């Protein structure tokens, strides 16, 4: 058994050494099932880390702990210097403005149009914007994902790929510093999945975001990951670049790359 972080530990880019997320000894269990057990990981400014792991290994639980949807039993999650489990409602709200979350099922509100879906986070967070400013942000976010013409449509009228793009636009509307992607290409055909992958990279280029991406899609992983964290047994089993992990002889790591 290889110890946590011991396989590969790449030299950090000296230009981006500021850690925007620092996870220390994170632990969470549901009844008797230990999901995360002393999990450690750093996400640095402008970096994309993909979390790889088997289904049910706790990847979604990890990012839900980071955004504050789940409270861990132990450990620290420092996001931009603030420990998420310690934050009250208002402080959590402030930090969530700086974090975007792309849900696996898109989570678009069925009863609202695309415009209302995009305006929702702007109206709900305590951000004072004029109608013109709101409209400009909605238009910009839709232009970024190439779906300006869908503004008055309902989610049910959109294809799976379009819904994913709209969900991404809603994630972008607050111009977050950090984006958490929960399986962004799952359920999409390879071409649409490739388009979403390209979009993730374009967003990073344009907004200099730092991203934690959960994915099983190895094409997406290869293209988006600066580093890959392998989540096994509730721990960060290995951390390295795609090339480094692909060359690993460890059979537990190899199974993801075969």
């Amino acid at each position, binding site marked *: 058994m290889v110890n946590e972080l011991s396989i590969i530990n790449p030299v950090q880019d000296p230009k981006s050494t500021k850690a925007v997320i620092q996870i220390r000894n994170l632990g969470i269990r549901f009844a008797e099932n230990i999901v995360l057990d002393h999990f450690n990981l750093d996400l640095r400014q402008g970096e994309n880390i993909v979390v790889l792991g088997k289904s049910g290994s706790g990847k979604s639980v990890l990012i839900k702990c980071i*955004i504050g949807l789940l409270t861990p039993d132990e450990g620290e999650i420092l996001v931009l210097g603030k420990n998420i489990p310690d934050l009250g409602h208002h402080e959590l709200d402030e930090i*969530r403005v700086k974090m975007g*979350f792309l849900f696996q099922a898109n*989570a678009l509100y069925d009863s609202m149009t695309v415009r209302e879906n995009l305006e*929702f986070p702007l109206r709900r*967070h305590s951000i004072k914007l004029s109608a013109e400013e709101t409209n400009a942000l909605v238009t910009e976010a839709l232009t970024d994902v190439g779906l300006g013409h869908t503004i008055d449509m309902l989610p049910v009228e959109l294809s799976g790929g379009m819904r994913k793009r709209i969900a991404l636009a809603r994630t972008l509307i607050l111009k977050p510093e950090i984006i958490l992607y929960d399986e962004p290409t799952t359920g999409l055909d390879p071409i649409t999945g490739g388009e979403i992958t390209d979009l993730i990279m374009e967003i990073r280029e344009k907004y200099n975001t730092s991203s934690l991406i959960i994915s099983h899609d190895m094409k997406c992983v290869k293209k988006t990951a600066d580093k890959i964290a392998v989540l096994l047994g509730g721990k960060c089993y290995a951390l390295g670049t795609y090339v480094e992990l692909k060359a690993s002889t460890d059979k537990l790591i190899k199974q993801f790359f075969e």
Partner: protein
Amino acid sequence: MTSKLSAFLEDTGKLTRFSFRFFTEGFRPRYEIAEFLRQCYLVGNKSFTLVGLTAFILGLVFTIQLRPALIRYGAVSQIPYIVSNAIIKEIGPIVTALIFAGKVGSGIGAELGSMKVTEQIDAMEVSGTNPFKYLVVTRVFATTLMLPLLVLLADAISLMGSFLGYNIQDVMSFSRYFDHVFSNLTYQILLPSIVKTFFFGYAVGIVGCYFGYYSSKGTEGVGQSANSSVVISSLIIFLIDLIAVQFTDLLGYN
């Protein structure tokens, strides 16, 4: 058997805690006025046609079926009094509440259940919204306030049906019929029957929201949430009715 009892007690406890949460969060800011008004419109508007139609047929059929029995006692002229008492005190509130539970309660259970399994509730929380206030508090307030209005309308429509039913075989003018109805209608009859409908509305809203909010098992769970919302809220409506009748009896209102 033990596990079923344990599950029942656990669900009862959770539902009770959920109800208390409504009172602790429902009266504190931030107030979701726009969403509350939207829910009032949806809840009232969605049920009005069905409630109105059912109430009309109920009043009509009840009067026609009651007539032969009253003929035997020579009390046909008492139909407006008897029908209005029965409809306003019991039949109107209970039938409207059951239709409301079937139509609105199941809708709330399915809608919130669907939002839960598609992560829309999580998305709301991430977007700086308290989903309990936005989804639950607004819906429970809407059902609590709209059901009494629907019951009043249903009572009125039902009495119209009764008037028509009476005039199929006998003749009585509209004003005379309703003079009979209102001459016997006191606040002691009307108030308890309206007050209990606030509790019926609350039960439909809170039970629907509870089963939707804690829905699981994907799309199968959504169906279960809708079904449980109707079954449990219908049962609670009868329990509330039972308690209400004992209470009004104690006060001498029966």
